[in-house]
């Protein structure tokens, strides 16, 4: 059952949001105004309140398009003890994420239209936010035979990816890309040289040397990216790099874009707000794939987001249970939950790194929606009323056990954060409301 918020607008289909700081990533503007929603669609800006409309006073807080989060891992099917479609949906609603774009690394993997339909159908009945699924590029993510890209596209797959499993065989990848190009499908790659990164769990450098952890040079990312760019140039496919995390890769990304390749790049919020030193005394909640980078790299990534060279910020939501994290660092599972912390963590870019809110929302909402061909991510007339109302300045200390996600593996436990979601709307329905 879809959880209904207390003041759901089911009885009235017209909502008038007023006294709102409107964050418009499309126009790159931020101003006080009002917004009218009818039947789940934005119909007018700065209009007077129509009669019979449900008026919502935003109290001068920010109203922005809901976040479109590319690359969310949901444990369903296969690992519901880590995260189910229901808990992921609840977490997303609390985090201001109105569209979850799900990774296909489930068990079984989403590599046939049947699994995709199963997931989509279950998601519809269980989650208050939109869920779109990606499908695998190769069967069972094994890197050998391509998935049924055509059928999967018809069934609603928004992109094709083997997740963080690098496809080593360039011939297979080239064929997948050619085939995908023919169908206009989007491929999401994980740029990494498999040879260099094999067995590594840290970024090579002073810190990894001191801790005695097997490490990989950030050059492995550049090499993986360069290889993928060669194949993209060869095939002409649309390509998105899931996470670009190293300064060394940026010139190659800039070149690829300048050469007219259909390339975009993303980064997880963790690589924008944390660095390798946060691992400290082998804290496994700070273990990521790729591993956290140096502060120099982190700074370069923040600037790349500000410049628009990196297009998309995502949470890379990866739920892990306590057992898989309470292990020696090398053996521990990788990744962190992020749906609920994406927005407050992104506010660090606003408060401490000089990015403005429309800039941040381009990367959180407008760009990912555009990349996947969704009509959300905008505050314009005709766009769906997927909205987040938030206070960018509200301070709080994060308690991981207060998270709605089933797994509590967040690196921000006990962290002082600013930025709170006050309400989340999906197609005009309130799916989350903050209460003291």
């Amino acid at each position, binding site marked *: 059952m879809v959880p209904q918020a207390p003041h759901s607008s089911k009885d009235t289909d017209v909502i008038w949001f007023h006294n709102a700081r409107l964050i418009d990533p499309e126009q790159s503007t931020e101003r006080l105004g009002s917004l009218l929603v009818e039947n789940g669609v934005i119909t007018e800006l700065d209009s007077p309140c129509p009669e019979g409309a449900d008026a919502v006073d935003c109290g001068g807080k920010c109203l922005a398009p809901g976040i479109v989060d590319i690359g969310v891992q949901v444990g369903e099917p296969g690992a519901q003890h880590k995260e189910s479609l229901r808990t992921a949906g609840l977490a997303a609603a609390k985090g201001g994420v109105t569209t979850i774009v799900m990774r296909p690394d489930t068990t079984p993997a989403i590599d046939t239209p049947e699994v995709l339909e199963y997931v989509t159908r279950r998601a519809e009945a269980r989650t208050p936010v939109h869920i779109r699924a990606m499908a695998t590029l190769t069967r069972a993510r094994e890197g050998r035979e391509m998935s049924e890209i055509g059928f999967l596209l018809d069934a609603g797959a928004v992109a094709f990816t083997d997740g963080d499993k690098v496809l080593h065989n360039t011939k297979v990848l080239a064929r997948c890309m050619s085939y995908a190009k023919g169908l206009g499908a989007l491929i999401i790659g994980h740029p990494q040289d498999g040879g260099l990164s094999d067995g590594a769990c840290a970024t090579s450098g*002073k810190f990894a040397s001191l*801790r*005695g952890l097997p490490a990989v040079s950030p050059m492995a990312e550049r090499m993986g990216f360069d290889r993928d760019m060669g194949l993209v140039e060869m095939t002409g496919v649309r390509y998105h790099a899931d996470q670009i995390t190293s300064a060394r890769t940026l010139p190659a990304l800039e070149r690829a874009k300048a050469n007219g390749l259909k390339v975009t790049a993303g980064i997880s919020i963790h690589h924008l707000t944390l660095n390798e030193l946060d691992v400290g005394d082998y804290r496994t909640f700070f273990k990521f794939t790729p591993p956290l980078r140096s502060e120099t790299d982190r700074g370069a990534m923040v600037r790349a987001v500000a410049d628009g060279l990196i297009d998309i910020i995502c949470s890379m939501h990866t739920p892990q249970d306590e057992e898989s994290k309470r*292990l020696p660092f090398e053996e521990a599972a990788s990744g962190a939950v992020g749906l609920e912390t994406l927005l407050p963590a992104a506010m660090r870019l606003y408060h401490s790194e000089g990015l403005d809110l429309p800039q941040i929302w381009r990367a959180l909402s407008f760009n990912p929606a555009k990349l996947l061909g969704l009509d959300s991510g905008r505050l314009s007339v005709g766009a769906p009323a997927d909205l987040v109302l938030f206070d960018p300045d509200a301070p709080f200390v994060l308690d991981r056990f207060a998270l709605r996600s089933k797994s509590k593996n967040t690196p921000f436990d006990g962290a002082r954060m600013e930025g709170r979601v006050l309400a989340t709307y999906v197609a005009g329905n309130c799916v989350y409301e903050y209460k003291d």
Partner: protein
Amino acid sequence: MAFKQNHLLGIEPLHPTEITTILDLAEEYVALNRSSEKHGTTLAGMTQINMFFEASTRTQASFELAGKRLGADVMNMAMAQSSLKKGETLIDTALTLNAMHPDLLVVRHGRSGAVNLLAEKVNCAVLNAGDGKHEHPTQALLDALTIRRKKGRLHRLSIAICGDIAHSRVARSNLILLGKMENRVRLVGPPTLMPRDVEEFGVEVFDDMREGLEGADVVMMLRLQRERMDGGFVPSEREYFHRYGLDAEKLAYAKEDAIVMHPGPMNRGVEIDGAIADDINRSVIQEQVEMGVAVRMAAMDLLARNLRRARERQRLREAAHG
């Protein structure tokens, strides 16, 4: 109070005065160990468990002897072939042992940081007997004691650590300790066996033995840890010995009175010429083993004192709250 640690997990958390405190106390135990009455009672009534997840002969024997000479009840657990094989996690093993109320836990594990993880979950003093490629603090302390006794000081010495630095926890603990005590540390080895950005620790890096040994007071050789290698770090044993093995010709570049050290076990003819290892005028390898027992006695003694003090405080707190 010059020693404030509750565990000995590495050299990194230690203050230079804490290092000196351990070494000074160890000197007393050297004297005790050389007497015919080798029994102390410092650890009487205490239980020491040696948990070695990685096979070890000399370190385990050294810790066992150290504990017994101080009067502890010592138990050895060869973890390499026990419960972990049955699927039990490290944490569960730790909790199981913790329930037996040990006072000192000596742990060796193949993963960097595993001993730190374990120390969080138990309420006794934990000594790191080597974790992955991270630290091996008692080895560095025994090396320091050996150097101090041979050279009369532990500062402003030129010390060359040679060989497989990348895979060596001994090298890490040593370069941190020697750096803290304000020595000039040089690392010598092929680039494939050198950790990344190690220069940033304030050491000099050489890939030529002769340059690296030039004027050194101490030459510390490391075992070429073949069992740790994925394969292919050096072309062959013989080429390695030719370029990096310590022989009389290369040693001649060091100071005339330079001492030669090796943490053992040695690969004669791989990293060190047998004749050098046996040269009683240069090699202090046997003395290192002797210092090992003394340093471990000192470390366990100091940790036990802190443990007793902490427990006494706890008891008083509980008594006060009725």
